[in-house]
């Protein structure tokens, strides 16, 4: 079955490493503003900080639901995870969608993929270059570094919202994106870290 194409709106995807914090924050903010958006992680596993640095909580993408993780963490240490805000975040996530998704596993096509970390950008680009070209539709992959913590995620989400608003105001995205990114980067009110942009083809 083919995926129905949408000719009128820009299809956004935001991707961080685990599809938990940064991408979900942006996902929420963008979807609340009516954007057509999906969120993904690009890492091998969903990794959440554990009680110590060397014992992260790892889950499988797609098959593990946010609900499951939520309950799992409650079971592990409810007060600890409540305190560091993790439960709160997962609770928000499970109200947005069912489970964390891995970018490399999706068949959907997007117009713009926003990566929130250079490593994620590399993975996404690598994935897009490695898959056989099918439809030939171009996709813009943009990187904006956001530090992986709750505050930065929120601040970063606003930056992403700004970027997406600018992009969606374009008459012709493919022709204007260079200029939009230039303006976005040059905005004195906000420092954009490590802006990267490339174009790939599905």
């Amino acid at each position: 079955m083919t995926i129905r194409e949408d000719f009128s709106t820009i299809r956004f995807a935001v991707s961080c490493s685990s599809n938990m914090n940064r991408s979900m924050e942006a996902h929420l903010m963008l979807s609340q503003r009516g954007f057509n958006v999906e969120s993904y992680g690009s890492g091998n596993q969903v990794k959440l900080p554990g009680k110590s640095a060397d014992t992260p909580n790892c889950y499988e993408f797609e098959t593990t639901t946010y609900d499951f993780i939520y309950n799992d963490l409650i079971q592990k240490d409810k007060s600890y995870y409540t305190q560091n805000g993790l439960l709160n975040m997962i609770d928000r996530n499970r109200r947005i969608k069912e489970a964390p998704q891995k970018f490399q596993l999706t068949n959907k096509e997007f117009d713009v993929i926003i990566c929130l970390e250079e490593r994620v950008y590399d993975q996404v680009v690598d994935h897009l270059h490695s898959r056989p070209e099918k439809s030939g539709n171009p996709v813009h992959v943009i990187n904006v570094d956001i530090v992986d913590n709750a505050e930065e995620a929120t601040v970063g989400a606003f930056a992403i919202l700004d970027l997406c608003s600018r992009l969606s105001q374009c008459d012709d995205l493919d022709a204007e994106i260079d200029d939009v990114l230039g303006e976005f980067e040059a905005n004195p009110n906000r420092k954009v870290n490590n802006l990267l942009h490339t174009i790939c083809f599905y």
Partner: protein
Amino acid sequence: MDKFVEPIEDTATVAERVSKAIKEAHEAANVDDKLKLLEDAADILINNDQSAHLLDSFCEEMLEFVDNPQFTIKCFVVSFIQRACLRDPEVTKKAITTLSALLSIDRQYPGASRIIRRVIIACTNIYPSIIQWAVRKKTDLEAGACWEAFSILKGRILQLIDNDNEGIRTVTLKFLETIVLAQSPRPVKDDAVSGMEMISLEEKSRHELVSLTDVPRDHRFISYRKLQIEADENFKSLLNQFTLMHLSAQNLLVLINVVCNIAKLRSGWEKTLERIMDALEVLHVNLPPTLGTSQVKSVRKELKFHLFRLLKMPAAVVIQQKLITLLTDLGASASEVNRNLPPNSAMLPKRGRRGEAAEETAKRARVEAKIEDDEYPDESAAGPSTSSASSEPSQLTAIDVTAQWIYERLNPQLVTNLVLISLVTFPEEMPAMFASSYTPIAAAGTENQKKHLARMMATQATQAEIGPGFEQMKAEKLKRMQDRIEARKQGAVIAPTPYVNRDTQPEPSGSKKSEAKLPLPTFTAPKPKQQFNLISSVQKMTKKEMSEVFDHLYHRIMGAERRAIQGGAIQQQNLLLVIRASRFQSNDEHFEDLLINYIIEEHKQRTELALLYLTEIYAQYQGFSHIHIPLKQLRDHGMSKSQLYERYDRILCKMLKNLTVRDLHRETIFHKLLLESPTVTPNSVVYLKEFSALGLTTLRELILTRNRQRLELIDLLFSLGFHDKPDKLRQSVVDIVKELWELSYLREDIRNKLREQIECCTLDVPPRHFQTLLEAPNKWTENIYRNALHLYLALLQIDTTLLMPLAVAYAKGPIEFKRIVLRLVEPVVKTIGVQNQEMLDLVAECPLGAETLILRFVHLITERNPPTRELVDRVRSLHATRNTDARGMIPILSGLDREDIVNLLPHFVLNSSNQKFVQVVIKRLLTGKNPDTLEPTITGEDLIFEYHKLEPREEEERKMHVENLSELLDSRHIQKDHIAAAIEKILELDVVPPLFYHTLTVVDKKFPSLDSFISNVVQKVILRELWKANDETRKAFFRSIIQLRSVAYAPMLTEFRGDEFLEFVEYAGNQIILDLRDFYPTLSTSQRRSVATEISDKVRDKDAEEKQRLKAGKDGKGSKENKEKEKDKDKEREDDRENQEQEREAMRESRRNKEQQKEVGTRFAHFECADLKRQNCIHFYQNNMFYF
């Protein structure tokens, strides 16, 4: 609607579902609903139809939606075409036109660029499958046509590589990639196998679907060779893109991506890897200066990414060293490089020289190419593919040569100098590219680093077109260009060469070689380009430079016509040419001439351009468009409206003139200029004058279409009637004027013009347009009059309202004019009927002075048709009021009543100047039918009667009266009975005119059978003593007796009294006596008896009687008795005679008395005794019934 259709559903049901969905989609008001329904239909057609024939049958219905104005629907159609073509390439046949149409969609349409992009993407996707399909359908003609169509489409897409829309360029680059991949040979197997591990993921993509290897050499419509050349040239043009300074970051990324893809998939083809490596090296040190920091970072990242991927390929060992150097420059660590080396690279050193494998591959490819070429020896002769393969490394050599040259000179002293000089020229800010690319040099001063540095400098030098290697490269470039032109000639579709903005004034190549020039400070390091700064980068140009640039530019735009057509941008090209030539004040005429000459050179193709140009100039004249004028000059240079009009006029005339000079006036453009330009100036129309037939047709069209200039144009048309050229033209003018006259909206104008023209004929001097070159100036000639009248009279035939103006002009005009008019009107007026109301009005309201013309008209129109009552009345009243010439009445004689005829008769009979009409008049009177009674108004009898009643006053008239009598009596229409009746009637007059006696002689000559009647008449005349009325009648009577001779002798002898006889003899002379003597014996005895004695004495030939008697005596033996008897008899006779004389006298008296009583019955009695045929009598009786 749910998307799934059970596969077991039969075809009919599925078709029903599809048609239902399409129908609903047609009806759906909401775009989203429509789209949803269409998606469903498409889904069934493409994914759920097993047989694929549904797709074929519904395809066109789906394609129809492209006409929907909605952007999304159009996009959907493109997407549908893509999917459908992939499913079944047969669909391409139908879809190709839709794709073409969408590609040339109006740029004003919202989202046009996105639609174009989608079309290109769709083409990118379906192209490989189309090749595959076309290869299969060798014999299908339709497929051939489809392939041709797609080739054209391909060409148009490739033109978009220069499009100003970045997005379109992006997808065009991808399209180029597909072309190159699909039209180049697949690498040989073991290479592919070795590369398979790396590119295993690509194997399913469209790039793997088809390659040049799959195309048979002997294909009917696909030229293997053309595809090969196309791929090669397009690959070169891709590489050339790298040199573009204005390339955006986005497209640079795409370009890297595309080129590296090609490198991966076609590693063994035409030294791809080396060429790409070379291009990437150049790119690395020459990133476009317009890139921002993050863009430079992105590009370098992308470059690094792709280089790593290339590095992984076993086939890339040839360029491994260069890859590693470049990667190191890009900031890759040694461990990263090592990690990405191909797994078997460790084996390579064992095999001896590095790159052996690759060389082998290359060798194999060459051998293969050679074998292939051997099969086609004719192609190998100048095969660009092989030559280009060998030529490509020459650029490499160029850099190598320069690198070696620099390397030899890199000593510490020179380097120090270079550094010192470059310190001065450093920019204020560190350029973004330098910042991101700078890495501390780890192995400074080593041989390797020196070589690398020399190479980097050499790259820059070659880019800047200097250095010993450059010459080589230049020659090579020239060759490449020739190859390209050659390839184009063979029909290959190649993306246009990017325009590289180099220094405007390349120095002569000879001076480049001087050593002093080379060690320029700018070569010291791979110095990053400065960030673009508009203010510092631009320099004010001098006016001369500016105009030169404009000039060059203009020529260049003009030269790009073919490309513009290919790319569907001909309108823009035309627009540019027109705007430059028309909207800038300075140098106006120069560009004007350029453009006009340009148009005329290829006038067939450039008619639209010409019209566009004129329209623009006209728009400026009307103020819809403006001429750009610098503000400070505004006051001086603003053109007034009249100047603008003059300019329009000048340009239009110039075009027409140039066409005329080149003898191109028969071409369409000449006529289109006049027909379709916004307005036609009087000066321009004159050009039409030169060329007869064709020009006239155009002029006619102009008159029909150019409302506002109609009068001028009609003037022109009319003036053509005075042209010196042969009559054929004049006739054409007449035909056209007639044709135009038929149109009601033109009729009045034509009429007015005709009236004006005829009025002009009365002027003293002919108007300017009447005069031809051959005639003496300002003088009327017959020719001019004829020309003026020719057209007028031709129209007169169909438009009789023109009669009156003609008559008015005639009245006023000079004699010469009148003469010509009278001569020329004949054939025309004849065709006008007697019934014509205008003609009647004209006769009724005849302008003073035009009577002759009117009468001529009347004459002409009645020549064939009898005059009508209306006409007769009008002519008669005209005659009455204007006292016109009696001749004018001839045509209507038959319509006049008897009284008029009688009044008219003397005007002809007794008028010396009208003598030649007498016959006509008589004929008309006798044959013409009265419009009321349909019988002649006057019978022959009456006419004769009336004729005799005429009273000539002078001798001359009398003579004519007599002479014309024979005209009357000779007429075919006068019968004996007419004459007889007329004579009877005349006899009844109180005074019988002297002519009457002459008549008798004439009648006698003409109708000898009437002799007894005439002698009767004579007898009557004598008995009634009519001849005695006056002296004249006496003489006339005597004359007639003399002439009638024997016919009159009898009554004369018998009825004349002695004194009368003496009078006669006195008049006639004694000669008559002899005559009478001869006659006397013929009288019967009874007649003799009635002869008066005096007369008989005179006329008796006594000698003869004596002789007779003697003769009789001899016969009777001459006896005495006989003689005595004779004597007795004589005596008796003598007595008898005396008695008889008395009797006779008494009888004569009584007859005379009787005659004088004029009894009606006598008429008939005479006829009884006359020797007339019985039939005639009856006829006469019938005709004269009314007398009884």
